[in-house]
């Protein structure tokens, strides 16, 4: 059985304690976490500066890339890259400042579950709006709705190439001799719903791919469009059920996948792993049952996790990913990083509006330079937002982050960051305030005996209890 503690609430379920946050959890950490998801704080105002999906798509050239003069191609690449920088920095501001961190953690989780990544360059500029418009509003709604919102969003359609998928017997397919692209259908089955062991076959991948042909973002459009001329005519089969022609058949197919028992198991297991590594089967079973019995109610699923004693164990602790680590450090120091990051967002935004060279972003000065340095460090540590290496998203097992290189990069960043922060506080008091009872005797001693305040602060951030959650 796990002990309900404020530090676990703040660090495992939240995003890392801000100064004074442990006091908020106090005697009833569960209640505080549930309050986060019942009354999530609004988005940080920085996001008002960032474009919506429609606005980003409107920036796209009307013609195909190959038909454009080169300078226009370059311009769009620059705009995309600048938007990516702006969105990433804004996301960090949101994570640092949110007073309802459990809700934010859910956003991060579902965003990772439905990964879109700028490793496909056409996603640049769209990943932020995807998270904002398709994921964020749905993290306490129904899984089926979230699945639908994700699948229909231009970022997903572009990322997993559904925009390049044509029914072989469709009008366009026949005329231009184009065929199916199975990518999105496969990942829906393997990564979003049933899971790789969920009991589907290659024929089902093809069936789903055919069902969602025509789901695309045509050039010049500013959102999802069902293009009949690309849609595969006739009946299709998926997991033994027949589906007719048209867009609504795709909506129905996704709803059926969301309701599949294998989906409840796969999604719940992945959700449990968001909190502890190798969660006990009993916990996974409890979450699965809650998912199934509520028809995929994600608020109920989140509550089930918070209510599960075994997920409060101190015996299993995830290593913080680089993103989680930086967020926890910056939250721990209050709002100091917000202005530099906002200045960087502003600088990137100027590039989008006024055009120019990406070099301008590399050469920013003043506050923006510090903001950029933080984003660079995230990159060096291996985890820029929206750039997961594969559709599976960022790995949820710690082995991926405990390579010698990775650990050294964190320690180097801890050290250099701690030496660049004005330290007008006692690192030991900060450690006690952020970690509470989780601060170990040996870390306490190390901070006390540090050769300088900066070294003490670096040791706090490097300690096992801060590296894990």
């Amino acid at each position, binding site marked *: 059985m796990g002990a309900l503690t404020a530090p676990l609430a703040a660090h495992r379920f939240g995003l890392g304690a801000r100064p004074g946050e442990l006091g908020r959890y106090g005697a009833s950490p569960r209640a505080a976490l549930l309050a986060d998801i019942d009354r999530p704080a609004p988005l940080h105002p920085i996001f008002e500066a960032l474009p919506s999906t429609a606005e980003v798509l409107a920036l796209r050239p009307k013609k195909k890339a190959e038909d454009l003069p080169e300078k226009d191609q370059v311009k769009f690449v620059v705009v995309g890259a600048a938007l990516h920088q702006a969105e990433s920095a804004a996301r960090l501001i949101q994570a640092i400042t949110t007073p309802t961190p459990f809700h934010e953690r859910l956003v991060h989780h579902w965003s990772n579950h439905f990964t879109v990544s700028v490793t496909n360059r056409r996603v640049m500029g769209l990943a932020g709006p995807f998270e904002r418009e398709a994921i964020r509003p749905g993290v306490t709604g129904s899984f089926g709705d979230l699945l639908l919102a994700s699948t229909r969003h231009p970022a997903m359609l572009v990322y997993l190439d559904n925009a390049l998928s044509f029914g072989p017997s469709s009008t366009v397919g026949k005329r231009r001799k184009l065929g199916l692209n199975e990518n999105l259908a496969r990942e829906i089955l393997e990564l979003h719903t049933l899971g790789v062991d969920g009991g589907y076959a290659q024929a089902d991948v093809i069936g789903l791919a055919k069902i969602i042909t025509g789901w695309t973002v045509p050039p010049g459009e500013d959102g999802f469009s069902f293009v009949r001329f690309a849609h595969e005519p006739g009946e299709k089969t998926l997991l033994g059920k027949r589906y007719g022609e048209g867009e609504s058949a795709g909506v129905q197919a996704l709803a059926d996948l969301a309701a599949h028992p294998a989906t409840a198991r796969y999604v719940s297991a992945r959700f449990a792993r968001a909190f502890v590594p190798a969660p006990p089967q009993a916990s996974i079973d409890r979450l699965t049952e809650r998912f199934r019995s509520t028809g995929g109610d994600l608020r109920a699923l989140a509550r089930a996790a918070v209510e599960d004693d075994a997920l409060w164990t101190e015996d299993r602790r995830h290593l913080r990913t680089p993103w989680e680590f930086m967020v926890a450090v910056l939250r721990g120091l209050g709002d100091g990083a917000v202005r530099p990051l906002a200045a960087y967002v502003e600088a990137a935004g100027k590039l989008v509006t006024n055009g120019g060279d990406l070099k301008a972003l590399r050469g920013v000065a003043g506050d923006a330079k510090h903001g950029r340095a933080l984003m660079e460090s995230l990159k060096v540590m291996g985890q820029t937002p929206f750039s997961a290496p594969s559709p599976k998203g960022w790995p949820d097992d710690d082995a991926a982050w405990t390579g*010698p290189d990775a650990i050294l990069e964190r320690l*180097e960043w801890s*050290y250099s960051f701690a030496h660049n922060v*004005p330290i007008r506080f006692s*690192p030991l008091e900060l450690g006690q305030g952020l970690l509470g009872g989780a601060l170990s005797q040996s870390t306490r001693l190390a901070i006390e005996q540090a050769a300088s305040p900066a070294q*003490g602060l670096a040791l706090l951030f490097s300690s096992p209890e801060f590296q894990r959650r």
Partner: protein
Amino acid sequence: MTMLTRRTVLGALGACGLTPLMPRLALASAPTDRRFVLVILRGGMDGLAAVAPVGDPAYSSVRGPLALDAGTGARLDGTFVLNPALGALAPLNASGEMAVVHATGLAFKSRSHFDAQNVLEAGGLRARQHDDGWLNRALAAFPSTGEAKGLAVAPTVPLVLMGAEPVTSWAPSVIPAADDDFLMRVARLYEADPALEAALASAMGIRDTAGAGAMGGEGQTRARNQGLKPFATGLGNLLASESGPRIAVTELGGFDSHARQGTTSGPLANTFAQLADGLIALKASLGPVWDRTVVLVATEFGRTVKPNGSLGTDHGTASAAFVLGGRIAGGRVYGDWPGLGGGALFEGRDLVATSDVVGLFKGVLEAHLGVSKRHIDGAVFPESIGVAPFLAPFTV
């Protein structure tokens, strides 16, 4: 109190490889033409290793394996020699441009780095008696021009310069790199976590193979083994400018020599060499302004006289401070030497402090910078009114 910090770069920084911007510091309506640089040595510098009292009869027996031979290093006077690792400073001593103040320490006796550094920088008789730094309080004596009055050449403004008076900071494009001392301390923390321990052990192995001076991104070099020099060169350039600041602070760490510190070679000697090279570079980049400059080098406490079980030393009390400048009363070792033998040691382990280092700070403020006694006693060091300003090194 809010404090203005901005990064300001003057045109004279070509040597440090930075793009010069328009000078933003005020033309000198500064009250003084003189410059003052405080160099803080963090970690508790072993004054007995820096300036060894080889002439003290108890010295070699009590220092044991850490004792220097009498013939080693430049002789400063009848009793003291300068550690060869600091040998770059020997000519300065010979020409009277450097003086040592030995057996000096804080009135506040603490063996905690945090507390002692706090008192060294904030003043007072106990830790956290002041929120701001004594040097910032001293800046209030200079008229306000709307521009920064002090300069921190460090990644961030040290406490000694923090406070109501506006200061600015500058640091060269050098990312402070995790040094071996830090990584060893982390390794100790990771003994409780096998996965992290294994990863770190692997990383240390790789690091040693790769050698010193790894490159970071964008042409920024990791600061391994670069020490004080990059900071000192930039500092000198900034101070030398007519329209530049007059008061500056920089710092050097790596003095917390708990294990295998060595004598004329080893980790402590390496740090001494960095200090000496940095100070020489500072003098060089100050150019003609050197004659109007005083540099004070001070640490929060010294170290135990006897070596510990790891051939290092633990936290002590009194240490040595250095005074440098173009026109100081140098070439000697100031201080009332208490001796190392018999019952002379503080708590049986430390060199006794026969002077309060605050006296040295007061001395430079009064004699070199012309800060009034009233301001020093009333605002800068109100708890140390009884400590006489130590004026001798500044009275040429």
